């Protein structure tokens, strides 16, 4: 089914090149680091250090990285929930960076976010119906009976019956809360979703339900999605294409299957080998990474991964490695790679 869809996508690309829904070029975000509450900034922390990516309509792009990689900040920057320091974000051909707050509001309803923690992200004093209908009111999309019907439809769409409309968040399980979070994100009819670790706080048995739901929504509404996660197996399952992020930079980009079968970047290889293995056959040979993530305040020169890389050589500290093709639609930023 996945293969079929990808083929259809490829075929349609060949005849009429589909423009990307979202096109990000050289996105950067730095935070000043202060000593004390009112101290002068003494350094800058580069959370996002030049990220470029594209998301097509109906495509799920996985963004994988460990804590401190900058994946969450990247997601927030795309929606201008956090202001970027540099770069461009084009949504449906329009540069979002140039928009005033007022102009941006019209775009807000077309881009929405699903948060990780279904316990923190819902106002406990609002009913589920009002939580789901909030965006309808804010964007002036529906009132009265139309609004109510739309809320019922949204609840249905995420697998909750209309009877949930009068309930309060504290009566819901974690999985039900996350369904409410998804219904809220869908309310304004978005074309693009950022899903930031949407299943990380859920039990395994519930996680599978929510992943299926996100796929249903993609298929039904043809939304593009940036799916941010630390969990490689989840991303492999849900994403069409995967980006691997390390210390503010994308180090590898590939179709999901290719990434897991032929990971090219040493960091991706280490990440895959570290994931606990359940199943038949032999687990991968584990590549041990030494030490911890370097500080993003003072990142290594040249390749950011070289301080922990098992294949690093003296040259790796000289220049920042560019993304190079290593296969069809498969790129990696490592000077030791040759195209396959």
């Amino acid at each position, binding site marked *: *089914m*996945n293969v079929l869809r990808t083929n259809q996508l490829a075929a349609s690309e060949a005849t009429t090149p589909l423009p990307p829904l979202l096109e990000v070029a050289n996105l950067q975000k730095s935070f000043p680091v202060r000593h004390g509450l009112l101290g002068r900034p003494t350094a800058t922390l580069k959370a996002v250090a030049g990220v470029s990516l594209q998301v097509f309509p109906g495509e799920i792009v996985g963004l994988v990285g*460990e*804590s401190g990689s900058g994946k969450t900040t990247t997601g927030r920057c795309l929606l201008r929930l956090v202001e970027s320091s540099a770069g461009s974000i084009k949504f449906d051909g329009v540069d979002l960076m140039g928009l005033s707050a007022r102009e941006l509001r019209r775009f807000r309803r077309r881009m929405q976010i699903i948060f990780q923690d279904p316990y923190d992200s819902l106002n406990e004093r609002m009913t589920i119906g009002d939580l789901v209908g909030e965006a309808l009111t804010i964007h002036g999309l529906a009132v009265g009976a139309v609004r109510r019907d739309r809320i019922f439809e949204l609840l249905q769409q995420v697998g909750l019956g209309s009877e949930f409309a009068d309930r309060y968040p504290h009566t819901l*399980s*974690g*999985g*039900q809360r996350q369904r409410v979070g998804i219904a809220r994100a869908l309310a304004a009819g978005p074309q693009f979703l950022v899903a930031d670790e949407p299943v990380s706080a859920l*039990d*395994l*048995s*519930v*996680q*599978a*339900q929510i*992943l*299926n739901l996100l*796929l249903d929504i993609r298929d039904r509404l043809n939304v593009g999605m940036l799916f941010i996660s*630390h969990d*490689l*197996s*989840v991303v*492999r*399952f*849900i994403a069409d294409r995967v980006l691997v992020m390390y210390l503010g930079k994308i180090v590898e980009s590939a179709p999901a*299957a290719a990434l897991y*079968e032929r990971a090219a970047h040493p960091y991706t290889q*280490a*990440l895959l080998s*570290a*994931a*606990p*293995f*359940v*199943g*038949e*056959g032999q687990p991968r040979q*584990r590549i*041990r*990474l030494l*030490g*911890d*993530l370097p500080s993003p305040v003072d990142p290594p020169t040249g390749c950011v991964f070289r301080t922990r890389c098992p294949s690093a050589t003296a040259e790796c500290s000289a220049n920042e490695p560019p993304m190079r093709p290593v296969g069809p639609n498969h790129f990696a930023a490592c000077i030791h790679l040759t195209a396959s």
Partner: protein
Amino acid sequence: MNDRRDAILRVEELHTQFLTSHGPVHAVNGVSFEIRPGETLGLLGESGSGKSTIGLSMLRLLPPGRGRISGGRVLFGGEDLVTASEKRMRRLRGRDIAMIFQESLSALNPVYTIGEQIAEVIRQHERLDRRAAMKRAAEMLEMVGMPDPGRRLGEYPHELSGGMRQRVVIAAALACQPKLLIGDEPTTALDVTVQAQILDLIADIQHRTGMAVLFITHDLGVVAEIAHRAIVLYAGRVVEEADTQSLLARPRMPYTQGLLRSLPQFAKGHRLAAIPGAVPNPRSLPTGCAFHPRCQEAKADCAQTLPALTEAGDGRRVRCLHWHNIAQDMDLRVRA
């Protein structure tokens, strides 16, 4: 191997309750298991399974006035910890049995140096002067793979990364060479590359010291990686027990099968075989088998009869009325 006298720890019919404004909630409903020296037992469960409560009950660390052990025995080397004096428990905790938690930052005191905190644990249990205790602390840091341990002794918890802090917590836990280490999701907050280091570290130390490990987790992958034997919990009861390999290759309880099918790497086609519904609220457990409302194999009697934990051969136990009629062959080939 199966000789009961070999076990360093035997938990027998443990019952634990929490007192709430809505009356008592039964978090643990008659759990039994044992661990032998040098063995790692995985305690696998989702939220509400009672897995953390079991760990806290064993060390008598339940919140005072709210949680209480309402039945059963926890036999450590033959001594029942449920009836032991508080003074005796203080001797055992940290010396014979150590416990590490998910949140390493809250386990460490922010105003003391790393060295002082490890030395403090050692001096509580052994007659050593400050200098000797510090020397031992440095050795412990070296054992847990802390680079430059001499310098780290003088640092404070906030100066370390999450992975390094968890190493400090492990160093402190192992400083007195406990016979049993209880880990409650000790790697859950860590990145996979760091988690792999910590799992290797625990296995390494176990190999050298022969300590027993009880590893409490929600993560099937972690169980596969570290546990020799595993117990699956659901709604405060053991529902399946087996050596890890057989459990993961041929699970017998429909719940365990459902968990494995939920794993993204075993997806068939482009949807996951999710378990419907959610884990039950311990305030209102379903009648009969607690899993029956979510079970694809459930029959009429499952709603009436609580199945006993039944011996299923090869040291396996399973709590299901219909376990011999349930297909055991799961296709667990990882999706290409």
